[in-house]
């Protein structure tokens, strides 16, 4: 498998379809054409493709990325090894450690346990997509301020999980942060500072800087 642009990414596009319809369809009402086109797109979607590489278009951080991938390539692999987005990390590759966490239409998921081909049509956000106009988001800033990392390998995953939490819960409790981050592991043991950072980012300052995270 090589990392190259698909030779014919529009093989099943509406344009090809409309061409194939010929003059009869060309004179049909636009609405009808759209209906038929939708039908044909559906029929194409039900075709069996692969196992060789097929065109896959991902929407990552607001940009469309066109790749040629075998259906078995995971989203994590597509990001790291077929694009240049190495922010999501590969730890366990078994949906356990959380280092590969990305947002899938705003919900955190494990990129290692999702096929790239089925991520098409969804908005993927990686840690690279959080900063706007060169400014880090509040979670990233809080991680720096609260010294919430040591080696940093788990950090993008935690940042994504907490960013997702704060999108739907503006002022989470410590327990809610723990629940949201239960699927992220930090082997350096920075969990207390990560909790501090999450609460800081939410504007909920914590009394103690050295709270022992018990996970009780």
């Amino acid at each position, binding site marked *: 498998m090589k990392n190259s642009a698909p030779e014919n990414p529009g093989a099943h596009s509406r344009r090809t379809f409309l061409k194939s319809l010929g003059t009869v369809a060309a004179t049909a009402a636009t609405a009808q054409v759209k209906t038929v086109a939708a039908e044909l797109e559906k029929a194409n979607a039900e075709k069996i493709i*692969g196992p060789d590489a097929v065109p896959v278009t991902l929407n990552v951080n607001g940009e469309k990325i066109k790749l040629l991938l075998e259906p078995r390539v995971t989203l994590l692999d597509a990001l790291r090894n077929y694009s240049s987005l190495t922010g999501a990390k590969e730890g366990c590759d078994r949906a356990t450690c*959380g280092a590969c966490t990305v947002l*899938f239409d705003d919900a955190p998921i494990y990129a290692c346990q999702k096929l790239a081909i089925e991520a098409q049509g969804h908005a993927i956000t990686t840690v690279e997509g959080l900063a706007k106009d060169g400014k880090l988001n509040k979670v990233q800033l809080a991680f720096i301020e609260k010294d919430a990392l040591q080696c940093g390998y788990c950090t993008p995953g935690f940042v994504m999980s907490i960013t997702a939490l704060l999108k739907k819960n503006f002022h989470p409790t410590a327990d809610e942060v723990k*629940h949201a981050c239960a699927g992220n592991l930090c082997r350096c043991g920075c969990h207390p500072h990560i909790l501090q950072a999450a609460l800081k980012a939410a504007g909920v300052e914590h009394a103690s800087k050295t709270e022992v995270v018990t996970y009780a």
Partner: protein
Amino acid sequence: MKAFQYATAHSTSSARELVGEKGAYLAGGNDLLGLLKEYLVSPETLVNIKSLPGLNKIERGEKFWTIGALVTVAQIENNAEIKKVFPGLHEAATEIASQQIRNVATVGGNLAQHSRCWYFRHRDVKCLKKNGDLCYARNSENRYHSLFTGNDCISPVVSSLATIFTALDATAIILRDGNELRWSMAELYADAWSQRLAHNSLQPGDLILRVEIPLARSRSVFLQASEKHAFDWALVSCAAAAEIENGKLKSPRVALGSISNVPHQVAAANEFLNGKVLDDAIATQAAAMILQGAKPLEFNGYKVPLAETLIRRALLKLKGDA
């Protein structure tokens, strides 16, 4: 994982056609990708069923609620109505795996997931469940294994939803070659009791469409004990559901997970509890009935007192005492 073909189905009939005899359905993909990565399964075609219409809804009815097989665990967790109507289901969903998994894991996939036995999951071990000659767990590392089994395989069913659905007396609707089958949870797992190769009663090509939960039990509880307090499999899980009228239990159901290759339920204990006013002594008696005949192995004996405690706690919580 081995290479495979891929298709997206837009109707159940085309899904069945596309999956053929050697394909696999792909929904959340948590269990399937785990199996693929360890080369435990190698389907020719993966058929994405996430676009099948109508299966991702939670629908309220007068007598029962319908939960589509493509509803995610997170959808259940975040549904405020479910928290009120089926609190045990909410509790079970909340404790399943991690946020990242709950966001993609589906009801159908949770019910159909394969054994978590670490010998089964090891790609180089050919155990009984993989048509080998030997159960490696029986005389070795069996701390997570079953207290009850109907065959030589001692890997337990681990679906938390199966446990709570059993207590709620839910029905699974299965599509088999164009016909809808209505199965109790006991029927959904019956083959895992009788056949060592089976994880459930589903045949290749069978598709779980939805689950129907009767509104017969307004009280329900789900408790699990794990080694970690979050993101961990249950060592033992316990669900209880009932109505309480004039202080007395009506149509009570108690079910346990992770101790048998099916959701463990004892009809005699349910009958014993029916009409009783719950107290610690009654709960203890029920627990003894439910665990009667348990056959602990070398390292999983702790599950007996753990299960007993969970049953008592679940029943007392059902009553509102704990």
